[in-house]
């Protein structure tokens, strides 16, 4: 039997951190921010089926970056945690705080006990009755947990995007404005030179966006994906901005929006 080389715990943890950080930095970014009616999630996601954003419970949403299979596991576990608690007690007793703590404990033990840590970063958001009661929790690969008063940015160019968002963010934004600053911020690393190459698709075509909201005006399930025509309507118009065409399609857009809603719910 061969003895493994000795590595100090400090070094082991440092190497695991490095591995997780590298994994997360390769991925595209997600921004989660509070707006007037709740919480907005915007993710750069080329896939339309492998979601980065998800509903956990009536008023709780989930966003993640990193390795899909790993955060998908966390998402499923979170939904089970929430549904079990809601059945055991009442739907009102399910809280993002409890879920975030459970995630933190799980991520923490995976980080210390397993060979490879989860290469993920997760945000759990919950909306309350008013904007002040909305909560955003950020969880990192090592099980650290923090709550953020305004917004959470995770993934590849988190620093650049955070800086950009810091400049443009204000509390109580309308949905359209919130989407605009989030999209501008997410696309800022790619437009400032070196980023575009890192993004892998050149600068001609911006990466597809996955957008969802937790809207406190919705009756029971606050989570709603904004897709198709509804997404077009809130996205900032491209620079060439063809207003006449927009008007001509307005009627159709509304219909499609309705269809999209009903098909999805």
């Amino acid at each position, binding site marked *: 039997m061969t003895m493994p080389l000795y590595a100090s715990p400090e070094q082991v943890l440092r190497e695991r951190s490095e591995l997780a950080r590298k994994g997360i930095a390769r991925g595209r970014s997600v921004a989660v921010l509070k707006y007037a009616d709740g919480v907005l999630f915007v993710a750069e996601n080329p896939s339309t*089926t492998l*979601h980065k954003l*998800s*509903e*956990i419970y009536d008023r709780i949403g989930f966003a993640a970056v990193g390795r899909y299979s790993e955060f998908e*596991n*966390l998402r*499923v*576990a*979170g*939904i*089970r*945690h929430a*549904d*079990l608690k*809601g*059945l*055991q007690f009442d739907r009102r007793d399910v809280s993002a705080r409890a879920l975030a*703590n*459970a*995630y933190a*404990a*799980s991520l*923490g*033990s*995976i980080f*210390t*006990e*397993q060979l490879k840590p989860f290469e993920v970063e997760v945000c759990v958001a919950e909306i309350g009755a008013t904007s002040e009661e909305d909560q955003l929790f950020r969880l990192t690969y090592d099980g650290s947990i923090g709550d953020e008063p305004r917004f959470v940015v995770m993934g590849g160019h988190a620093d650049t995007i955070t800086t950009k968002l810091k400049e443009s963010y204000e509390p109580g934004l309308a949905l359209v404005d919130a989407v605009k600053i989030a999209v501008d911020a997410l696309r800022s690393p790619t437009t400032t030179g070196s980023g575009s190459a890192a993004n892998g698709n050149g600068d001609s075509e911006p990466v597809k966006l996955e957008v969802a909201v937790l809207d406190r005006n919705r009756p029971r*399930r606050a989570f709603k994906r904004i897709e198709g025509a509804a997404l077009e309507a809130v996205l900032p118009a491209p620079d060439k901005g063809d207003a006449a065409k927009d008007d001509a399609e307005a009627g159709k857009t509304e219909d499609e929006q*309705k269809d999209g809603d*009903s*098909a999805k*719910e």
Partner: protein
Amino acid sequence: MENTSGLSGAALPASYFSTATSSFIDFLKTQAPELLPSPERAARLPVSGLEVPHGTTIVAVTFDGGVLIAGDRRATTGNLIANRDMDKVHVTDEYSAVGIAGTAGLALDMVRLYAVELGHYEKLEGVPLSLDGKTNKLAAMVKANLDAAMAGLAVVPLFVGYDTEAADSRRGGRIVSYDVAGGRYEEFGGYHAIGSGSMFAKSALKKLYDPDAGAEGAIRAAVEALYDAADDDTATGGPDLARRIFPTVVTVTAEDGALPLPAEQAEAVAEAVVNARAEAARPR
């Protein structure tokens, strides 16, 4: 995930991370079986005259563009009224609703778990179950209750849903009934009733049902049928004008999904029915 157990008690157990199933009920079986209805225990009980509250009449009617389900509000224990204003019709997801007859306690538990099951599946999979998937799931839950039914604690649900994949959107409303053994029967006739007053309600609907009626006409027919059931069946509660207790109605349509009828509207329809009956009974 094996070695994540052990250290921290707050961490999510390994079974939470399993990808084996999208069913919440299957998950409960491994994680919290005490939260499931436990028919084994009920089966061990002697078949007794145990007096537990029973829910009674539920009617379902399809209409042009959807389907509705309505129920009276009474629960009885033997010859006594156990509850005057319980809700026996529940919205279970965006496009379905379930009404319950039989042992009230078990039935409420079942419909609550059923609603969680549907939502759970939808969240995990990203798409809701198909309408037939939903009805089969409910059949399995009724069947799981068979032992309790043998001990005298039967639960019989009535399912209505709007099939978003229907070829003809005006005929998307569907009704599915069940027997105590979990048998699942789609009702193509356009209306159905379950519970102690069902014979009278169904007879009334036989005359009143109009497949081309809109939602309003169907609501009126359903409330008329419930009135007839209450008229001849002591276990079914009629509209209670003194206490302002009226039938619960849920409509399911393509546009609005499953929507409980606002109390004022239910009140208005019920009052109209009562007044019409009073008018008809007046000697000429």
